[in-house]
């Protein structure tokens, strides 16, 4: 994995070119940069909003699109009802609006097909977003690197990118989807109706033909702590596990 310093990346204006509701609480925003940039699967951008009085709010959002997807980048943003920036996107932002963006950022939580695998991805809620970029990158490259995604959501309706993920799973090209629904019964025979735990990690690893070479875990802090510990207890060396925590 290359870890060279990111090039200088100042703020730029991006235009919202598309808005697509993914789940009741998560919506995708497609952004066209004024200065298009290359990025790696797993990286994030910072978004900045400015009020008329000069007050600014900035937040980080992972890129959901694959690096191969062209100039437009996709962000998938979960609405936190009492938040500041995510409700702006859900309630106010419209196609044609401009916001400021800086990136790509982050050089640790990244994967490309040339890094190889097997790849074990563990996401909770909107934590699936950077993992989706990796899965889309793998598909775009027609990579056969074995990969498993364990994706925890509360209910079936809240599985972000559900149809696309199931479609990729159905290809049987080395990508395996495992859903862990925490508040509803599983619908597919391979899925679980509980929170991620050590046994689930052990079983998910058996879907890979060889021990994982990379494990990526992303979500809220509580989710990442629990999932990373479950991976360690299932025998994954701590040094292979990379985490991205969305904060509180």
């Amino acid at each position, binding site marked *: 994995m290359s*870890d060279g*310093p*990111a*090039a*200088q*990346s100042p703020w730029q*204006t991006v235009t919202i070119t598309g808005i697509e509701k993914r789940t009741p609480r998560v919506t995708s925003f497609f952004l066209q940069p004024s200065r298009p940039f290359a990025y790696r699967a797993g990286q994030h951008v*910072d978004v*900045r*909003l*400015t*009020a*008329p*009085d000069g*007050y*600014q*709010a*900035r*937040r*980080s959002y992972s890129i959901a699109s694959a690096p191969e997807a062209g100039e437009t980048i996709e962000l998938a943003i979960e609405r936190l009802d009492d938040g*500041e920036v995510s409700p*702006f996107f859900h309630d*106010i*932002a419209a196609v044609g*609006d*401009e*916001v*400021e963006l800086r990136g790509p*950022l*982050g*050089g*640790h*939580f990244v994967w490309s097909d040339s890094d190889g695998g097997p790849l074990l991805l563990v996401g909770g809620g909107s934590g699936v977003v950077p993992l989706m970029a990796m899965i889309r990158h793998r598909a775009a490259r027609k990579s056969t690197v074995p990969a498993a995604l364990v994706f925890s959501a509360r209910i079936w309706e809240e599985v972000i990118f559900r149809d696309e993920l199931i479609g990729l799973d159905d290809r049987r090209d080395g990508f395996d989807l495992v859903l862990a629904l925490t508040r509803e019964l599983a619908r597919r025979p391979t899925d679980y109706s509980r929170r991620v735990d050590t046994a689930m990690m052990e079983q998910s690893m058996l879907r890979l033909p060889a021990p994982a070479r990379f494990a990526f*875990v992303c979500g809220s*802090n509580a989710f990442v*702590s629990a999932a*990373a*510990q479950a*991976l*360690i207890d299932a025998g994954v060396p*701590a*040094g292979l*596990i*990379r*985490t991205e*925590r969305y*904060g*509180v």
Partner: protein
Amino acid sequence: MVTRGFFSGRKPPTDADERIPPGQYLEQGFPVLSAGPTPHVRTEDWSFTLKHGPRPIKKWNWTEFNALPLTKMTRDIHCVTAWTKFDTAWQGVLVDDILADAGIEPPTAFTLALSFDGYTTNVPTQDLTAGKAMVALLYEGKPITPDHGAPARLLVPHLYFWKSAKWLNGLQFTERDEPGFWELRGYHIYGDPWREQRYTGDS
């Protein structure tokens, strides 16, 4: 550029303005960020080593380290993910007191902080001395929790908080300014929040 339809919602009280560096917002909680799983370091297994390059100068175990003078520091902290938290209260051993116990003056102008999980971060030596930084053992009067770097973390409150390495197990003096973990991955070599030195290339 003014964003259409975005208005100041959570503007901090004006007397707080001068305490919030550019691009930061006020946070009441204490978010956790790290590059990997949380190491669980037992105090029996903990030690702290002062090094000059590869050469150890002095090593303390947990009991020895706790016998050093303890100092209180209450400071605002600033995370590069844009939150600022006011008045965080820490207790620990000033880097000055560690150097005094080792009986040395700083041998070089640069330091790398070393952690149990292999994390490193670089800080100029003069940003660690003269009461500016400590190895913190307590937060709000209680032992630091594993998520926040137990049992000991560096505290360099005037720089972005990734410089305050968690799960600290040593300080290494280096001849040159050697980029650490995040500094090699696109983050600023110095990280002054007041100059918004977030990423490589920020002046």
